[in-house]
């Protein structure tokens, strides 16, 4: 019982700190909005309509998917800073188990991702169309799975090194791998036509791509949903949570 209380206490602290970083939030929202209202809007004007009929509407749910990564990575930045400045020593002497601390951090990252993503889900429902009642549980489940994956990945990546540059570079590289190896900016058929396997296959099973396709269905851009996408996302989520827990637990005491 105490452990559960500790987990929520840690998550609550992380959520509180999230609200404190207003400048950071503004910067990140600006970045994601720039993708929708600058890149997608301008690039949509030069895209072949036979491949992507409405590029602006195609990209918007993808950005909602990518946004979870950006927000969940804020927890990564903080974990990285704590490792660099030895604040982990303070966290380790708190009267709670290490597992409770680590789970609390993952939960905090997930809640940050959910809150941050909400803006982009509302935006997607305005630009595309609102989800129907039967689509809402799938939408919610997808967001939970995606944000927990991203939060775990962020914590694992940011606690790898004590060096600020390496932390920032690892975060950037992970971001760009998820960014490029996803269907946020180009549909699968473009990749199928232009690239040999397994590239299109890898792109279509990345967590961001899976979630983006589910969101496209939820916001009625696609008329069908492949439920195996949801199952695969659940698999990604489980694997990344285990990775995040194990890495953070190990790096908490590593010197």
């Amino acid at each position: 019982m105490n452990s559960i209380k500790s987990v929520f206490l840690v998550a609550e602290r992380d959520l509180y700190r999230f609200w404190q970083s207003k400048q950071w939030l503004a910067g990140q929202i600006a970045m994601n909005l720039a993708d929708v209202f600058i890149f997608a809007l301008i690039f949509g004007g030069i895209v072949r309509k036979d491949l992507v009929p409405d590029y602006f509407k195609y990209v918007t749910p993808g950005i909602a998917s990518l946004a979870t990564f950006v927000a969940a990575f804020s927890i990564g930045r903080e974990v990285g800073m704590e490792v660099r400045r030895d604040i982990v020593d303070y966290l380790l002497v708190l009267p709670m188990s290490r597992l409770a601390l680590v789970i609390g951090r993952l939960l905090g990252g997930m809640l940050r991702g959910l809150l941050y993503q909400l803006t982009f889900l509302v935006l997607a429902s305005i630009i595309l169309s609102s989800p129907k009642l039967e689509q809402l549980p799938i939408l919610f489940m997808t967001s939970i799975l995606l944000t927990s994956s991203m939060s775990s990945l962020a914590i694992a990546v940011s606690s790898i090194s004590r060096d600020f540059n390496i932390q920032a570079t690892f975060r950037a590289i992970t971001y760009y791998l998820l960014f490029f190896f996803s269907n946020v900016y180009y549909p699968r058929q473009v990749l199928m036509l232009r690239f040999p396997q397994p590239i299109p296959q890898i792109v279509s099973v990345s967590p961001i791509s899976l979630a983006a396709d589910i969101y496209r269905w939820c916001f009625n851009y696609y008329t069908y949903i492949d439920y195996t996408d949801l199952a695969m996302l659940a698999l990604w989520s489980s694997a990344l949570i285990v990775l995040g827990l194990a890495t953070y637990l190990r790096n908490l005491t590593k010197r």
Partner: protein
Amino acid sequence: MTYSSTSLKQNSKSRSRNSVGKMVFTSRSLNQMLLLIQWDLTKIVRRVIFVVMRATWFAVQVTLFGIALSYMISTRNVGLDPQQYYKFYLLGIYTSILFSITASRAYDIAEEFEEGIIEYQLSLPINRKVLAIGRAIGGGIASTIFTLPMFFTVVVLANEFSLTSILLSLSASLLFSVGIAGMVISITLSIKSGDATDILMGALDAILVRLSTIFYPSIVLRNIAPYYYAALVNPVSHLADLLRIFYSFEDFKFFVITNPLAMACYIIGLAVGVSVMTMHIIESKLEGGGWR
């Protein structure tokens, strides 16, 4: 490089010996500036992981992302066929990489501040104007050298091997990089916070790259006036389009944001103007401490 006691002694000896005489003072300043440039250059050598990761990032951009985008282009709408667009994209993406890597000097400065190296440099017998200009030029040269493999990859992929174009492009890239290095040094030293630097540089990178002619020609941007004017004042647009003109004047002469002479003047003005601003900030506003 470290500022050894020998170099410090040499500096103070030369200062006492040459306390008067403008020419001699200039030579001492030049020597100090070279030391600062050397400092920035040696930092690259110690960044093997950073170099490998940036190279990977670039490789994915010119292969997967660039090829996919060029395949999606409508020739009728933009006036460029997929091959021409790919070449257009390559020169744009080189500019984007150069910009991002130069902007990442902000992280180096933030780290130096956290480690107390900035305070150490301020305590050295080096004129602050020289310190400012040395760090800006050093950062610019280091970033340009860092991106040389990427630059030559672009030259090979674009199949453009003119020596004049290569020399002109590298000169323009160096000036651009010096300007951006000066800008990020000024920003980082003004805000004095590692976290704020991290956030600000990320946002600046994202917005400046998107609001430029890196991905789309200026004729497409003209459809949305605010974006067009933002791209017009954006240094990233000017370098990207200048490189396109250096390499393929015939292909891109109708697609650049303004005339080539204006773009060249803009790049020179950026390097000079921002360096002066950096000198002003370091000389008048920077004191040790206050890092958050």
